[in-house]
């Protein structure tokens, strides 16, 4: 630090910084002219109705909390967005890697004010409270479709949820896993012990135990959605402990599937089709068909229906019967006999004669969580309160 001319150093830096920012601002004004007003009018005309009968495209904004190409959750959502991008009268804008802070609120506002979006689709759980709720208050004419199960009665009229429930798919995957497994021990690599992950684990386990009641499962939570090294270590530890089927719920199952293949154990994937990654050991896995839901929304929107006028339901959830989920390509471990059983069980789940959560269901401490005689459809709100692990699962949910 020079002490020769103490007065000049501060002034230099202050001037420097000031001029840098103003120069930037001034020169940018030269390019853009006056402050942009056209987008304001666009959103005000598009505000009253959601249907672009006038011929102006319906602008839908998608927000992801990580890069789209993550081979996992965000990629599935992005392919859902891509499914509607080429539909007539629809224009989608996307922004990725938006953290769950004030940033996402700003992004939503920018999409509405600058890009003229009238429908916003925030795809990460953590965006809902407080961010979506706060922005929804300021834009009552814009609709917000959040990907999750968090909407509750009494919330703002222009907010809705959609979700594809994986319980049935994972139940089927669990049955397949139990039939293909010789050791009767399943390993599960999960990110965090939150409700969707716990439901995944439990439905997988219930499926497995419906075939072999003595199946055991060991769960390892890595702590975050995308930690490749920890996921690989977890898979290896589970294989060390004798698990011969590995199931997974993290953002990108690629690491777990490939590591399981290297260890020569069977694996069951998630989010999207990973059969190419594990040609020997892959069984199957539940895949999201977000496109089906997105297309449904577009149909309703283009017919002039909105959340506010009651034309669009506030909660759009479903499972295998609605084709919101489907199963990935079967691997070589799925024999003809297993396939037959799968078809039979799937038919029963689709027509409703069988439910995944059929009492009596105990948690891994022995307490009865679903009493005998009670049955919950996957869409039941009680299931969103699950914070326990099913019987036979070794691990802690908190």
């Amino acid at each position, binding site marked *: 630090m020079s002490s020769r001319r103490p007065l000049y150093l501060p002034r230099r830096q202050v001037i420097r910084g000031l001029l840098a920012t103003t120069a930037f601002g001034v020169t940018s004004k030269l390019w853009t002219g006056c402050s942009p007003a056209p987008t304001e009018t666009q959103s005000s005309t598009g505000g009253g109705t959601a249907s672009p009968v006038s011929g102006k495209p319906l602008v839908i904004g998608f927000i992801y909390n990580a890069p789209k190409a993550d081979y996992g959750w965000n990629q599935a959502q992005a392919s859902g967005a891509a499914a509607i991008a080429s539909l007539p009268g629809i224009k989608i804008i996307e922004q990725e890697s938006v953290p769950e802070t004030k940033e996402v609120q700003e992004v939503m506002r920018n999409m509405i004010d600058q890009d003229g979006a009238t429908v916003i689709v925030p795809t990460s759980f953590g965006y809902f409270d407080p961010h979506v709720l706060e922005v929804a208050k300021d834009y009552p004419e814009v609709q917000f479709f959040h990907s999750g199960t968090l909407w509750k009665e009494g919330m703002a009229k222009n907010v809705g949820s959609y979700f594809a429930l994986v319980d049935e798919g994972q139940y089927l995957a669990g049955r397949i896993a139990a039939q293909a497994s010789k050791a009767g021990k399943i390993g599960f690599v999960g990110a965090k012990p*939150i409700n969707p992950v716990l439901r995944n684990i439990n439905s997988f386990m219930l499926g497995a135990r419906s075939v072999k009641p003595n199946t055991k499962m060991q769960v390892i939570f890595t702590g975050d959605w995308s930690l490749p090294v920890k996921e690989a270590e977890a898979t290896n530890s589970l294989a060390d402990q004798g698990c011969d089927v590995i199931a997974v719920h993290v953002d990108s199952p690629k690491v777990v599937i490939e590591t399981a293949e290297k260890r020569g154990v069977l694996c069951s994937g998630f989010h999207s089709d990973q059969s190419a990654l594990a040609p020997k050991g892959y069984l199957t896995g539940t895949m999201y068909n977000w496109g089906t839901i997105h297309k449904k929304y577009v149909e309703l929107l283009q017919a002039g229906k909105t959340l506010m006028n009651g034309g669009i339901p506030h909660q759009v959830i479903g499972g295998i019967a609605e084709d919101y989920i489907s199963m990935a390509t079967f691997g070589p471990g799925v024999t003809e006999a297993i396939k037959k059983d799968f078809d039979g069980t799937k038919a029963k789940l689709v027509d409703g004669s069988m439910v995944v959560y059929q009492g009596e269901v105990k948690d891994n401490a022995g307490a009865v969580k679903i009493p005998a005689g009670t049955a919950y459809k996957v869409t039941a709100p009680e299931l969103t309160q699950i914070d326990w692990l099913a019987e036979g699962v070794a691990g802690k949910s908190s």
Partner: protein
Amino acid sequence: MALSRSNWRSTAEAICVPIAAILFALILFGIFCSFNGKDPFLVYEAIGKTAFGNWRSFQGTLLRAAPLMLTALCTALPARLGLMIIGNEGALVMGGIGATIFGLLLSYGSVLPTSTTTTLGLPPLMVQLGMALAGIVFGGVWIAIVGALRHYRAVNETISSLLMNYIAIALLNHLVEGPMKDPSSLNKPSSFPIPEIYLLGNLGGTRIHYGLLYGVIACTVAYFLIQHTTFGFAARTAGGNVKAARIAGLPVGKLTIIICFLAGSCAGLAGMVEVAAVQGQANASIVAGYGYSGILVAFVARYNPLAAALVAVLLGGIINSGGALQRSELLRMPDATVLVFQGLVFIVVLYSESLYGRLKIFKEPEVPATPPPTTTTTATV
């Protein structure tokens, strides 16, 4: 008083060099974009419009700049003492934890309120003050530890503060998923939420929360502390030469710990703002990289707190414009673009540091030595 010749040269230098640096960085970025098939002028337009185009967008820039002003001080202050501390993220997290604990205690009397617990009914200002103080103390102590380790055990402060970051984040995750968890926050493990009346609001009519005000005040106070108090002078002296300072009798140990405490307290205050203005509770989302961005701001501002406030605005603008680059139909650039842009700007600005005093334009012209006057009338050349 007219500026003497040497004054205007260095002032001109101080104006031209940074502007040239930023423009050059923009040009480099434009070249990068055109190599990837994107029209650079569209890129410039998108950046300008979103970052500073109108009051609406500028609010967005200021909103993003707010936490950076505070976290930058966590590096800028100890740097005056010659310490290189990069523990801003950890101090922010600890401040957030402290603010949450005291926010809940002052609201409900307990960190784990049940459905029957009622609020204590304290006035909002008191609870907010409590949260701010808790944030300041938790963050301050965290970095003071780093300073103490440096002074008493000669542990390199860059490394120890880096390690403390990881430890703080692990502690946060452990607390919000364990002892402090709100059971109903099933999908996003968080602490119990702080009642809405106690949360920080926005500066009148804008979208910007009070964090911006805290940032500006903190930067101003820090500047005066360092430049215009004896304490600041002592710190700068010790930063220049520790041995000389010791010989002069300056209490280097005390200075170290106090400065580190102040540094950590600024970042801790940023953490409190994240909890009390943005999230409303403690959860993993308060870890958003503000600490690391703050380090960069501090360096580019050459550790001057006032300049740090302005550089924070610049960085806020860059981050703000990243979204436009992604969403623009014609551009559709990936999210990593803004990282490349940030990297370019800061590399060029850092390089421009070395140009001060070296450019011929701004140098004093060589004054030929005038010979001493002689008594004879003939002058020698």
